[in-house]
C-alpha cells in the first residue's frame, strides 16, 4: 500500500502496467523527457526507454491517428492530450475513425487504446483549460468514457482501460489531481468500466455525479444530513456505457433523483441520466428528476469562473428542494 494522490496513482498504474505488458507505449506532448505538464508520466521514459515513452510534435490529430494505427498493429498506446480543450484537432480521428474501426472492419480490428486528458474547471486556468467535454465523446457509439474521482479508482480504472479491447477516453479531473491522498494497493487490481460506485448509502434522494464534484457533493450531503436528510451518493465513474442498474436500483429506493455535473447543462450527460430514470423508475418518483449543471455558456476566465463553479451549498439547496417537493 502506498499513500498516493490522483497523479501519483496514474503514474503508479502506468508504471506497473508497462512493466507487466511490453506492448504498451505512452506518448504525447511533453510526455517523455519532462513527464508531462502535470507529471503523470514522470520517470517512465527513463525506465522504459524512448521507444516506449516519448515526446511528439505538437499535433493532436497525429497523436491520436497514429495511436489508432499502432493499436491495429499490435501495440497498446496510452496517449496524452495535454488538456481536454486541445483534443479538438483530434476529434476527427476519434469520432470518424477510433470509434468506428471495429465496426468498419467487421470485428477484425480492435483498438486497445487509451486517450488520457485532464479536464474540468476550478483551477483558475486560461481559456480552453476548463471545459468538460464528456458528453461529446459519450454521444459517439464505439467509445468508452471513464472519469475516476479517487486515487484508488484512478489506478483500477486506468488498468481496466488499458486492458480494454475498445478505445477508452480517460478523463482526469485535474482540480483534484493533488487535492488529497488515499491508500492505493501495490498489487494488480482493476475497477470495472461501466460500473458506478455507491459512495454513501441513503434513503431520501439519489445524487449522481462524477469527477471533482464527487467531493463537493459529499460536503453537501454532510450538510443536509444535519437536517435529517439521508442522501445516497453515486459516483458514476463511467459516463459511457452508463451503469443503469445501480442508478435505477437506488432511485427505486429513494424516490428522488438529482444529477450534478460540471459540464454545461443542455444536451449533457445529465439529460441522459434523467431520461433513463424516467424510463425505468417513473412510478417510483416523488419529485421531478433534476439536473444541477454548468450554465450554457463558454466557461468564464478566472475573474468570472466562481459564477460557473458548482458549490456544495448549491447542491445542498437542490437536495432540500427535491426532498421537500
Amino acid at each position, binding site marked *: 500500500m502506498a499513500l498516493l494522490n490522483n497523479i501519483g496513482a496514474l503514474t503508479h498504474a502506468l508504471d506497473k502496467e508497462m512493466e507487466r505488458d511490453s506492448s504498451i507505449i505512452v506518448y504525447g506532448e*511533453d510526455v517523455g*523527457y519532462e513527464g508531462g505538464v502535470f507529471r503523470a508520466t514522470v520517470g517512465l521514459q527513463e525506465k522504459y526507454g524512448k521507444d516506449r515513452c516519448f515526446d511528439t510534435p*505538437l499535433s493532436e490529430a497525429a497523436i491520436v491517428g497514429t495511436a489508432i494505427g499502432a493499436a491495429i498493429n499490435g501495440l497498446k498506446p496510452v496517449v496524452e492530450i495535454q488538456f481536454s*480543450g486541445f483534443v479538438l484537432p483530434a476529434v476527427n480521428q476519434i469520432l470518424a475513425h477510433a470509434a468506428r474501426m471495429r465496426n468498419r472492419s467487421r470485428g477484425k480490428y480492435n483498438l486497445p487504446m487509451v486517450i488520457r486528458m485532464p479536464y474540468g474547471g476550478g483551477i483558475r486556468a486560461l481559456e480552453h483549460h476548463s471545459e468538460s467535454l464528456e458528453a461529446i465523446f459519450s454521444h459517439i457509439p464505439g467509445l468508452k468514457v471513464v472519469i475516476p474521482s479517487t486515487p484508488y479508482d484512478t489506478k483500477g480504472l486506468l488498468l481496466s482501460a488499458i486492458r480494454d479491447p475498445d478505445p477508452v477516453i480517460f478523463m482526469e479531473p485535474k482540480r483534484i489531481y493533488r487535492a488529497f491522498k488515499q491508500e492505493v494497493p501495490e498489487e494488480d487490481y482493476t475497477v470495472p468500466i461501466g460500473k458506478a460506485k455507491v459512495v454513501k448509502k441513503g434513503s431520501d434522494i439519489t445524487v449522481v455525479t462524477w469527477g471533482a464534484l464527487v467531493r463537493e457533493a459529499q460536503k453537501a450531503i454532510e450538510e443536509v444530513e444535519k437536517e435529517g436528510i439521508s442522501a445516497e451518493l453515486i459516483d458514476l465513474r463511467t459516463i459511457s456505457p452508463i451503469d443503469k442498474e445501480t442508478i435505477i436500483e437506488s432511485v427505486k429506493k429513494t424516490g428522488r433523483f438529482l444529477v450534478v455535473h460540471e459540464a454545461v447543462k443542455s444536451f449533457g450527460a445529465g439529460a441522459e441520466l434523467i431520461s433513463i430514470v424516467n424510463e425505468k423508475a417513473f412510478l417510483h418518483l416523488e419529485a421531478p428528476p433534476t439536473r444541477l449543471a454548468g450554465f450554457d455558456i463558454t466557461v468564464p476566465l478566472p*475573474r*468570472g469562473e466562481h*459564477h460557473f463553479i458548482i458549490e456544495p451549498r448549491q447542491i445542498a439547496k437542490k437536495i432540500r428542494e427535491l426532498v421537500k417537493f
Partner: protein
Amino acid sequence: MLIDRYDPLEEEMLNILDKNGKIVDPNLEPFIENDNLLKMYQTMLLAKVADIKALQYQRQGRMLTYAPNRGQEAAQVGSIAATDKNDWLVPAFRELGAWLYKGVSLEQVFLYWYGNEMGSKFPEDVKMLPVSVPIASQLNHAVGIAMASKIKREKDVAIAYVGDGGTSQGEFHEAVNFAAVFNAPVVFLIQNNQWAISVPRSVQTKSKTLAQKALAYGIPGIQVDGNDVLAVYAATKEAVERARNGEGPTIIEAVTYRLGPHTTSDDPTIYRDVSEVTEWEKKDPIDRFKKYLIDKGLWSEDKDKSKYEEYENYVGETFKKVEGSGFVPLEDIFKYTYAEMTPNLIEQYEEYKKHIGEEGA
C-alpha cells in the same frame, strides 16, 4: 529582393544588426523614420518591463498564469512595425510587443491574463483578433481575412503568428496551402523560440529550417535573425509589400529564443541547460537595438534609464488598476454567448441571480 537572396534550404539567415548593434551590410539597412525607430524601441522596452514585472506579480500570487515574451521582443515588434495600421494582426498568444505596438493597451493585456475576458475587447480601430490558445488554428482565420480582403478588392494584409511547435499542427499546413492556392495577402510569422514547452525544435520537424516549409507549398520562405529587429522588419516589409501587390503569401521564420519559462506554471530548469540560456542572453534584441540607436544619436543610456524607470512605474500603476478591477459581473458571463440571450440562458441567468441575491455570490 531579400526573399530570393536567403535560401532557407541552405540555412541562410538574414541578419542586419550584429551583436554589438553595428550594421553588417549598409545595403541591407532598412529605412525607418526616426520617430518610428523610437516607437519600436520603446515598445520593446515596455514589453520587457511588463514581462519582468508580470513574472514577479505571479510569484507574489497576484497574477494568474502568464506567458512571458522575454527575448522575443524584436521578432514581435520588428514584424508588426512593418505592417500598416489597416493591416490585420492575428496572434497566437505570445506577442505582447506586437499587441502594444498595434495599439492594445497594457491594461487590456494584463486584464486578459488576469482572467477577465474584457481584456480581449479591443478598441474598434485596432484590427486584431483575440489571443488563440489552441495552437495554430488561428492561421486559417488569417488566411480567410486575407482572402476576404482580396475578394473585396481592398489592400489590407493579414499577419499571423505561430510558434515553432505550431508548425507541427495540421492546420498550419492547411492554412499555408490554402493561402498559397488563393494567393491570399497574408504573412506567416513563425517565432521559432526553440522550445514548445519542454519539447525542442528538433522534435517538431526534421526540416533544416521552418522557413523552407514554404517551398513545398510553392511560396517563398525566409529565415531571419529574430533577435535583430531590423532584419525582422526588413523581411516583413518585403513580405507585406508582396502581399499588397497581389503576389501572395510568405513564410518568415524569426529565429529567436524564449528566455523565460513557457508560462508561469512551467519550470524550464527541468529540460533546458542554463548555458543555453546564457548564450542567448548575449544576443538580447533590446541591447542590440539600443546600441544602434545610441550610435545613431537617437538615444542615450541616461534616457534609457529614465524610460525604464518610467515604465516600471507605469506597469506598476497599470497592474494595480487591473487588480482593482474585481470580479466579472454575472451579466457579463452570459451576455456574450449569443447576440441575444436565448430564453434558456435568460432562465438560467434569472434563476442564478435570484440565488446569489438570496445567498451572496
